[in-house]
């Protein structure tokens, strides 16, 4: 007896692709492709990653080698972006600088977001005293400006990569927790979570099977947002002289070193600025595109 079944409401007529895990990634990829900003953003970030990885092939110059004989050159055939005061090739330093910026920010963002997500979900699900205490601690850490926290940590443990990564991760875990907790709180009262509770599933099982898959989009957008914020934070740190120690090629450090010579060799400062801005714009575009594609409500992010 064919059910008197009116066609589904005019929801986007997506072809009923198989809904297995493979299907889900295809679906995500299609939604990604559908939003233009996400594609542009990801393309820009992709270019940056490529440039950073292929740096040795792209430029013959060693980013750290000093050749004072041709210091402070403007852009020319030999050095496309000119040289800085120690005669180091600016273009090479920008390319290698990409490694530092991308590497450190990627790792610390992953670390921070992973940690933040687990804590955020647990807080939202368990609620009660655990949630209260956690909010108190988060508020305390958030109340200290990131710059101060980082300055103190870096002066205590020095400026090695692991130190900076952990410091940045620790500093922005509270913000991630706040956002993820908000997103999870919106999912927890949903009936399918109540159904899981009615079945007597354990908290961890509910977290893993019901809550996490539904906030993965918020987490990804949060990841992209934080990555751009981290890149800026790291470059500010280097600018203040607390980040990468010279002579490592780092964009913030390059701006700091060459900013007084901006009228003589403008490219020495502008190249890292352009690189930094394009990378961050790329990440922001990607995160915007992602959030539009997945219809993530960025408002919760503010609460």
């Amino acid at each position, binding site marked *: 007896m064919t059910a*008197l079944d*009116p*066609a*589904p409401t*005019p929801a*986007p007529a997506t072809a009923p692709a198989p809904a297995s895990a493979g299907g889900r990634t295809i679906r995500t990829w299609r939604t990604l492709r559908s939003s233009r900003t996400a594609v542009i953003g990801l393309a820009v970030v992709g270019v940056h990653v490529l440039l950073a990885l292929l740096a040795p092939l792209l430029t013959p110059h060693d980013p750290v080698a000093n050749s004072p004989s041709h210091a402070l050159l403007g852009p020319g055939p030999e050095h496309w972006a000119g040289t800085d005061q120690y005669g180091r090739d600016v273009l090479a330093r920008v390319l290698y600088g990409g490694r530092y910026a991308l590497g450190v920010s990627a790792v610390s963002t992953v670390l921070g977001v992973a940690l933040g997500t687990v804590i955020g979900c647990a807080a939202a699900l368990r609620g009660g005293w655990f949630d209260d205490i956690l909010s108190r601690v988060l508020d305390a850490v958030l109340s200290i400006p990131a710059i101060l926290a980082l300055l103190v940590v870096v002066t205590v443990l020095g400026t090695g990569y692991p130190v900076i990564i952990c410091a940045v991760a620790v500093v922005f875990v509270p913000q991630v927790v706040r956002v993820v907790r908000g997103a999870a709180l919106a999912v927890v009262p949903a009936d*399918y979570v109540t159904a899981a*509770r009615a*079945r007597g*599933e354990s908290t961890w099982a509910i977290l893993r099977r019901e809550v996490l898959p539904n906030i993965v989009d918020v987490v990804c957008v949060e990841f992209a947002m934080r990555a751009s914020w981290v890149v800026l934070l790291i470059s500010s740190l280097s600018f203040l002289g607390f980040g990468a120690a010279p002579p490592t090629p780092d964009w913030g450090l390059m701006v700091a070193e060459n900013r007084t010579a901006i009228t003589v060799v403008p490219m020495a400062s502008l190249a890292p600025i352009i690189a930094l801005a394009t990378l961050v714009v790329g990440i922001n575009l990607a995160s915007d595109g992602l959030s539009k594609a997945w219809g993530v409500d960025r408002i919760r992010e503010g609460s």
Partner: protein
Amino acid sequence: MTALVSVSSLSVSYRSGGQDVPVVREVSFELPEGRTLALVGESGSGKSTVAATLLGHLRHGSRLDGGEVRVDGHDVFALSPGRLRRLRGGTVAMVAQNAGHSLTPSMRVGRQIAEAGGGVPVLDLLEQVRLPRPAELARRYPHELSGGQQQRVSIAMALAARPRVLVLDEPTTGLDVVTQRGILDLVADLRDELGLAALLVSHDLGVVARMADEVSVLRLGRTVESAPTRKLFSRPEHAYTKRLLASVPRLADDGLALVGEAGEREIRARAVVPPQAPVAVSADDVTVDHGSVRAVHGVSFELRCGEIVALVGESGSGKSTLAWALAGLRAPSGGTMTHQSGDLTRLARKRPPGLRRRVQLVFQNADTSLNPRRSVGDAIRRPLRLFGTAPNREAATARARELVRDVQLDPALADRLPAQLSGGQRQRIGIARALAGEPDVLIADEITTALDVSVQAEVLRLLDDLRRERQLACLFISHDLAVVRGLADRVLVLRHGVVVEEGPTQAVFTDPGHPYTRELMAAALEPDPDARPPVDDVPDWEETADADGVWTDHGHGHRVRRWRPASTPLVEGVP
């Protein structure tokens, strides 16, 4: 004289996901002065979109493809912004569906009404819509009013500018049946008093029968049939209209209405529950508290295998709280609930697995009851694995496909995501998931309220089949008396957490003992223009719980809580 409102071959499409989805296809009708036209159809039929075009409003992203809407002689879409604003103020006014959402939360109600212009004093308008203490009420914010009060404010706001056409978009959906009756009477009186033309949009045939002079039936954006109300209800011509009318349960049905292909209606007699059927669940003096508020107060009932017991009552009567307590989601603060194989007063998490799978819950809103990121097959497989009713993965998958077939769906749907299914299909999967644990007791918490009337009929049919085949005990929660009348063997009427009347459905419906039950039945709307309300006298009453017993017995298990006629006339209080 041309009609006040004339819509000719209106076509509207909505851009989504890259293509243009047609929502309205060549709809035409006329609305003369002082007459009321009803647009009827199921969700997705485009009726709200058509209604909005009378005010020249198209939702963000939708586009006018063709046709014309002329109001008072002007083509609405050709008007300049200034003239469009005058039209919206003075000539056409709209009362939106969900009053709670259509009133600005940060503005006092009085100012929102005054803002609509027209110079009519706000207090007069509030009195006209029969709201108590207008002065005090005008200073309140929307969230401080009840659903009924909010809707009356919306109506007052629409009337402020003395319009000549009133557009009502599902004015009473989501309201309790008694409040709904109050609102409809108010609109009818105002319409006649002010000589307004009205365009009523609704999916509830009872409301249409009561209010409309003409009816236009819409399906998927196309006008299927259009006729005067009495003719349409008595001699429908189009198959879809027939089926639609047939699917609506009637208070007079003494069993479930089975609807044939061409809309022929056959009442299936209720299954007789053998008296010696074992008691699946018995609840004794159950009390549940919500913080300081007592939601359920001393409810007792028995539920036998194969029997459907209905819990009826308005919102806030505690019926859902009781159901959730039984399902183990809320711990009762008093009384006991026992099942053959164990005590149910403890939360689900603490119940032993053997007992936990015995009682299963099906949720009202099909959209949020299934995890959007998992296929429906997974949703069914999970309880199978958890309760061990399927030894391994392959057996679970096979069993799951079987269950999908049991709820009369194509097993191939198991791989789909919930978003790719219709409301009705999703609700059936909810039921299949409940059956995975092979329960004795199924709790259905308003499972048909959110469904279209045709889909509702099928789900009720499925529920009835299941309890017959599997000797399933079912606790059915609803606020729709007609649905309960057709499905349930026994019924309990709940008011403010207390059972005011209980007994076999036949007895309670033919001879309701308690005035509250009579009030509910009087307010129920039958899809028949000249239907007499089954009950007419509804005396004022008040509670009495004096020493010699709480109940008066009416035989065959039909009991009514004691009451006496109210000594002082109740102030004309509107809930």
